[in-house]
């Protein structure tokens, strides 16, 4: 059995957790599929195919856990290492949060305003602090917020969301 250091065991530990999480989710879905009513017109009901798929996922996840544990043993890592890796992904997490806020704000603030604010905020967060980059960020934010809106509405008759006020 090959042992790993706490540092290298982080991803395998998370993978084992993901197998367990996916297996539980798949089992829940498989039982939900089983509760779908049978069809009078065909031998396979609407729930049979999903049931096969979700049970297969659960079985594969179970096999993956067994293989992992039999090959390398229980992967042992620490919260400290996990936290360090997570903080290294600060830029990704902040961008994901900004993007989620952008998606939520678009129906309310409309495409132009939400896109302008999102592009400007993200670029200013990621770009080096220089006067030229600020000017460039404002230019890019205006170009890619108003530009697509008018392109789609004028050229393709597709209307991107408008502000609700």
């Amino acid at each position, binding site marked *: 059995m090959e042992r790993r250091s706490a540092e290298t065991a982080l991803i395998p530990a998370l993978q084992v957790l993901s197998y367990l999480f996916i297996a539980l989710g798949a089992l829940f879905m498989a039982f939900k599929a089983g509760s779908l009513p049978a069809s009078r017109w065909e031998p396979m009901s609407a729930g049979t195919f999903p049931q096969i798929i979700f049970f297969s996922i659960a079985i594969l996840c179970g096999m993956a856990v067994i293989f992992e544990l039999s090959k390398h043993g229980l992967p042992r890592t620490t919260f400290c290492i996990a936290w360090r890796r997570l903080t290294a992904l600060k830029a990704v997490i902040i961008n994901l949060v900004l993007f989620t806020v952008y998606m939520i704000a678009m129906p309310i603030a409309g495409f132009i305003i939400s896109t302008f604010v999102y592009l400007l905020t993200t670029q200013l967060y990621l770009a080096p602090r220089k006067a030229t980059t600020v000017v460039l960020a404002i230019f890019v934010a205006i170009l890619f917020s108003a530009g697509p809106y008018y392109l789609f509405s004028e050229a393709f008759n597709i209307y991107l*969301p408008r502000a609700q006020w």
Partner: protein
Amino acid sequence: MTDAFLVALGGVTEPYTLLLMAVATFAGIVAAAIPGFTITMAIVLTLPLTFAMPPMQGIAVMLSVYVGGLSGGLFSAALLGIPGTPSSVATTFDAFPMARQGHPGKALSLGLFASFVGSIISIAVLIVAAPPLALLAVKLGPWEYFALIIFALTVIASLVGDSLIRGLIAGLIGIGIATIGPDPLMGRERFTFGYEILTAGIPFLVVLIGMYAMSQLLSELEPAAGDKQPSSGALISGDMRPHLWQTIKDILLKPANVIRSSLLGVFIGAVPGAGSSISNLLAYDQAKRASKHPETFGKGEPQGVVASESGNSSTVGGSLIPLIALGIPGSPADAVLMAAIMVHGISIGPRLILDHPDLVYSMFIAMAIASVFMLLIGVILMRAFLRLLNVPKYIVVPVVLACCAIGTYTLNNRLSDLYLLACIGAVGYLLKKLDYPLAPLVLGVVLGPIAETNLRRAFQTSTDWTLFFTRPISALLLTLAVVSVIYSIYSYMKQRRLMAHRLDATSK
């Protein structure tokens, strides 16, 4: 047949369509040249722009982005030493040393002309192979179709990523996602849990954009491990002239390498899941093995550039063979092409070539014209691409993410798709970090409903399940699926044994 061909020729060669195709080819090259921006992303972002176009024009534009994108990776590979897309990894081995030796123009023109020849050869194979295969596919029953999809998914799962089991789990999760919403035969609502957002199901393009584009873009923001990205301006000096005639002569006088690499690319492209990211490396490896002076490979050998670029560009024709003949996309990029056709109410499958021959011919013609555009634009704008490679990530990432939101919204004009996009993007990034391959998942979403429809049709026709194993084509495909899994396990174990052997050798 002649009528359909002439209709297609007339449609594609309209001046406005040609102009759009030239712009699309340029956009494809630029997109693929920017490290972190993939061909699939470029094709996804083009899709909403084609909604208002006639089907022939829309498909021609999307194929132009595809063809341009397959050669765009060459620019960053040759000038920066960074593959713009996974399809140009092997190109860096020789094109970058050649550029550093003072011949960047020659490296680029060799790559561009090899890409052009590769595309043309792949189109020729596509024209010859797709129609007879489609005629054969029309005769397949639901048993064979179901078996074909099982085969495709096992091949994809075993070829992509490091772990077969995670590939299979990802593929099945994709199929599971596709079961949300109305069932494909009776329209019965499934797994919506009372949420209106799920009643129409999860559109596969939202999954594709979230899983592929968003996870890739977010990965670009991760701190780089070790070395700093070199700036192109500092690296490139020397002769930027293309020397095109000399290049054409060099390649055509020694045609074996370009033909072998192109045919290899076509074959690999036709296998679901095995795309240009594999073909360029295999073609390079074969060229090195066949060479009389393999020691020059990796030091600026022109044949290395030719092999890699013709190997990756020729996958486009190969990957369209299963799409046109069987209605099965082999890669996420092909899945978007399929969506572009379906948006116009045209169903994809073996009947496509029988019912819409003009559309299929227009695809062949568009690819050929896009290949010519790719060569011309690449050669003429060689110097300009050097500047474009310097677009900073802090502009590329948020702008492309905003474009992803536009693409998602315009698919169905549904705001709820935007919430789905944010959720799927976050999950996609997490799965990518945990080393789950995303291609099987995305293709699972596309292939899931086809698999379910055919399985249920098979049982509606006959409740005898042994038909899956007694009908010859179905049995053959299921056997191949099992063989692909066994082969994948065997290769993995062989690799582990080799690694253990090497470790033993180094410890002694």
